[in-house]
């Protein structure tokens, strides 16, 4: 093009070789329609094959490519060089997670938390396939639809100050997904999720900072899920304490 270049300062960290993460500067051709991920791929292909990061779909839906871009958690396939150019751009691994190498974080903790909220339909009695689908109106769908949009990108965990301090905290996405199943008209498993969602590590640790909702690229609004879960659990608790058996 016109020979313009963009500068990226990228965190490098190789366990066994680096004591602590360091920053390395790269310059790449500046292209107006490049996303940050294009620049990383350019570096990997043409400048330095040792740079490590995750990516796949390059269309904002697989959730692989989350990183800190100038200190803010972003999907790097969905932010453009031009949003920063000509300023230098700082690329770091998502904060609040252990670093495996360079820009690759260890998210196994989330996988365990996800499983703990039982993110599947729980039924007292199963309908047979031959009996057809469960009917669900568009209104019933919209009660939980927003919370199905989570791509597990971990941006909200990187933004969450509570998770940063208390790694036991279930965290925004896992809570949103638990809530998603609770709100699904086909599901009857709310009580069995309560033990986890309603525990100290569940919703109660959240102090309503709202950063999660702010950074979420898919408008999941995990903060709302946490807020509404608190209200519902409180309601259920009052019901259970104040109402005689049988009326719950």
């Amino acid at each position, binding site marked *: 093009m016109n020979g313009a270049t963009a500068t990226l300062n990228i965190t490098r960290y*190789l*366990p*066994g*070789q680096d004591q602590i993460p360091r920053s390395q500067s790269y310059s790449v051709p500046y292209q107006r*329609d490049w996303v940050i991920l294009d620049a990383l791929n350019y570096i*990997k*292909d*043409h400048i330095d*094959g*040792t740079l*490590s*990061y*995750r*990516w*796949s*779909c*390059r*269309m*904002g*839906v*697989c*959730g*692989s490519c989350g990183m800190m871009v100038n200190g803010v958690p972003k999907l790097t396939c*969905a932010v453009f060089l031009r949003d920063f150019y000509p300023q230098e751009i700082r690329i770091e691994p998502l904060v609040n997670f252990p670093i*495996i*190498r*360079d820009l690759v974080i260890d*998210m196994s903790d989330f*996988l365990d938390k*996800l*499983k703990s909220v*039982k*993110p*599947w*339909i729980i039924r007292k009695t*199963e*309908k047979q*396939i*031959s009996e*057809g*689908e*469960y*009917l*669900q*109106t*568009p209104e*019933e*769908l919209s009660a*939980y*639809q927003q919370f*199905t*949009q*989570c*791509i*597990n990108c971990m941006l909200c965990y990187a933004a969450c100050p509570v998770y940063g301090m208390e790694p036991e905290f279930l965290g925004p996405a896992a809570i949103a*997904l638990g809530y998603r*199943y609770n709100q*699904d008209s*086909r*599901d009857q498993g709310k009580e069995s999720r309560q033990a986890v969602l309603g525990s100290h590590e569940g919703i109660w640790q959240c102090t309503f900072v709202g950063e999660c909702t702010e950074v979420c690229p898919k408008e999941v609004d995990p903060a709302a899920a946490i807020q509404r879960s608190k209200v519902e659990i409180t309601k259920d608790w009052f019901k259970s304490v104040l109402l005689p058996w049988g009326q719950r």
Partner: protein
Amino acid sequence: MDTYDIIIVGGGGAGLRAAIAAAESSPKLSIALVSKVYPMRSHTVSAEGGTAAVLRDNDSFDTHAKDTIFGADFLADQDAVEMFINEAPGELIQLEHWGCPWSRDPDGRMSVRAFGGMSVNRTAFAADKTGFHMLHALFQTSLKYESVNRYDECFVTTLLVNDGRVQGITIINIYNGQVEVITGKAVILCTGGGGRVFPFTTNAAIKTGDGMALAYRAGVALKDMEFVQYHPTGLPGTGILITEASRGEGGWLTNKDGYRYLQDYGLGPPTDEPVHRKMELGPRDILSRCHMQELEKGRTFEGPYGHYVHLDLRHLGENKINEKIPFVRELARKYIGIDPVYEPIPVRPVVHYMMGGISTDATTKTTLAGLYAAGETACVSINGANRLGSNSLTECLVFGARAGRSAAEYASAQSSPSSKPLEALARDEQQRLDQQFLRKEGGKERIATIRQEMHKTMEEGVGIYRNEEAMQKTCNTLSQLRERFKDISFDDRSSIFNTEVIAALELDFMLDVAGAIAHSAANRKESRGSHTRTDFPKRDDENFLKHSLAHRTVDGPRIEYSPVTITRWQPEERKY
């Protein structure tokens, strides 16, 4: 050495469905689910438009079968198609029971929409993120099966074959670079397609045809590899897909004169409301060729990334766009700065799907005992020479489930493989990996350069229009690249999360897959479905109503043929 009854390679739609089916067949079976990315990152996540099955009274198994066979240009095996279509509705309902958030009609039933080449509305959808929702529903549901043990971010490098049957795999654990052996009585390959052998594709970075190459190297034939589907509406530059659902909902394709050009190619008449199988709802192979002919006539636009036409959605209005195809709006706004509510979207044909793959029968069995395959990596074949949009997600479910059950049945009747011979095989593999990848020193060729040259020659030789000379050139270039590959160099000699080694292994697989595509194409001297030859422009049922089977040999691919199963639908001219 970890030991399982069943090993499933791949955590996309097909792999997860297989895992659940195997787990449900018998809780006693131990199952390993191996994937080079976390399952929810698998490419199925990108699928947008929907998934087909006969769900309504105005539809019938016979019409779905006929549409599929016709779309396939009669190269599909009709017994397999019928089986597929019979099992499809149950699979979609199963997924509904597992929580997939399908879009709904006011009465609460799953909605269905129109799709290219389908004569009835039969494509179920979850807005325009169908694959995403299906994948997450499957993944989340799979978490409740304790017998499924995941190996996330582990890359399979070879199949271990002993005593005439597959008995395990070797993996590189990407976290630490260790080569490990997993043994199993049965192995199911669900590794997805290989669109990344081409430069311009809707496919995610991980779609490098690994499973096809794994089976090919183990002596299993790759079937119908010459059939590569171009999708008519990708974004120029990135190749990001604009789903066919945008046309199912009523979008128009216009050339630079604002003219709905498809009417000039026998797909008319143009109507305001979409009509099944007409105009913009014609099949993908034909629509992609129409685009190229418009280019020839000088009636396409020219942009920084070459020729394009317009996909016009403006007349649908903001409400419908937001409700039915919100992701299209999101993608167009984000990646090209165009809001389809107000402006048409520039689009052009882009490599999308591989009809071919590991040759299996309708039970998903391959010719190698113990080896099964399902999903895009397999070729049953139900897609023949051209897949109809929205049949492949369903294919992942139907044949994923079948693979899980078939493998479970087989594994239950087998004794455990003995470890001695497998240890020896694993040592050989470790040595190969060390020499060529993990500890290779020196070398002059950059991985990215060889990949780029492969891309270029694939586009030139086996793109939308093909001819003898160009294909031969591609075959030759590919064998040169195969030689040059031996001299690749690595920047990264670390063992921790070494993505350069993974990229090299993927390129190694892709060169095999590319060779199978080019040679199969050069040998098919006719035009059928997506395979269009300027030197043989007609379909030739007399000589080529048969499947190609590419076998790997030291001298390159050897192409053989096998018959197509015709049951009730005799080949006729394919006109829409």
